[in-house]
């Protein structure tokens, strides 16, 4: 069984940006497309807290 919340298939998962695909879209781990409108500019290597396809926060290093 999945240990993630199946409601949205994640529960606030830290994901690392691998590339930028659009102005407010980043590609993260496992080729997941993530909306980055709420966290401003991101660059490869940034760690994002992702929920339901949206980055809610950058995780502080």
């Amino acid at each position, binding site marked *: 069984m999945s240990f993630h919340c199946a409601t949205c298939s994640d*529960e606030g998962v830290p994901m690392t940006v691998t590339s930028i695909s659009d102005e407010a879209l980043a590609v993260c781990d496992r080729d997941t497309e993530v909306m980055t409108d709420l966290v401003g500019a991101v660059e490869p290597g940034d760690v994002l807290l992702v929920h339901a396809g*949206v980055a809610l926060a950058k995780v502080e290093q």
Partner: protein
Amino acid sequence: MRFVDEYRDAELGRALAAEILATAEPGRHYKVMEVCGGHTHTIYKYGVDDLLPENVELVHGPGCPVCVIPMGRVDDGIAVAHEEGVIFTCFGDMMRVPGGHGTLLEAKAEGADIRMVYSPLDALRIARESPDREVVFFAVGFETTAPSTALTLMRAKAEGLRNFSVFCNHVTIVPPLRALLESPDLRLDGFIGPGHVSTVVGARPFEFIPADYGKPIVVSGFEPLDLLQSVHMILLQLRDGRCEVENQYKRVVPYDGNAQALRVLAEVFDLRPHFEWRGLGFISHSGLKLSHAYSDFDAELRFRVPGIRVADPKACQCGEVLKGVIKPWECKVFGTACTPERPIGTCMVSSEGACAAYYNFGRFSRGEKRLVGA
């Protein structure tokens, strides 16, 4: 994985458990509510409660978005899904939530085109790829999930997509907490605050809990060490006679939230006058609907939504579980008539639901709790 493994360190966990044991006053019983279903899941997945002394009890709150959806809204969703030409999209767990007349999964088996998606963006993609169909997204969730729906709607509007709409069931976290605190049958010493909701709204909206009700609250992360530290912080407040909002999850939660997310929510949503919650009844200003600027995307205006109201099954005690009045195993149908395979109540459906967490991790009674030092 970075930012995960270090919060699951067993040695640090045992050290925190020892500090909790040293801080808890013998002879006093502490009841602490974790508001969020994600916390409930972590507690039972990692056995966090096994590390707590017998007199520190965790009770489970109404923070699983699937669990609080009333049966009538599921029936409404099924009615929309059966409309001619509709592709109805929803998160996975919603498929199995029982309405008064079956589940979305059963409606799919009857021929409705219902598809599971991982984010509203997936629903938008389906709408782009199926211009001759009406694509509806069944939006559920607190302020954590609502920005995802809002940003998707902003994209749909910018693209001029005409065949996409949202059946909005988003809810807000503060009104049900206030309703819980007003409940006369509730005895709590403090709250573990919802971490991911707080990445959006911040910790400040919870200031009413210490100010108006005299209870401490600690906004917490979702790893086992986060939860143990949060319990310890609550016990320290109680020991020291303090009562305040503390933020244990500072690595992602700004005290004032995410300003951009709050702007997006304000643009796309308005508060409903009232909204029905499973087990809690109608709560004022606790639900969101699409704002006037986005009313063209409102499935409740685009389709005939019957507005069904269904009373919860008499045998089901989800309401008392959601209020923390009873433990899941105290419900009459827990683990017998109601199981994750054939749920009666919503708390047994979602993996974040308290009943499912108890069932899946083998907690059938308090007697099976492994005590510290035992």
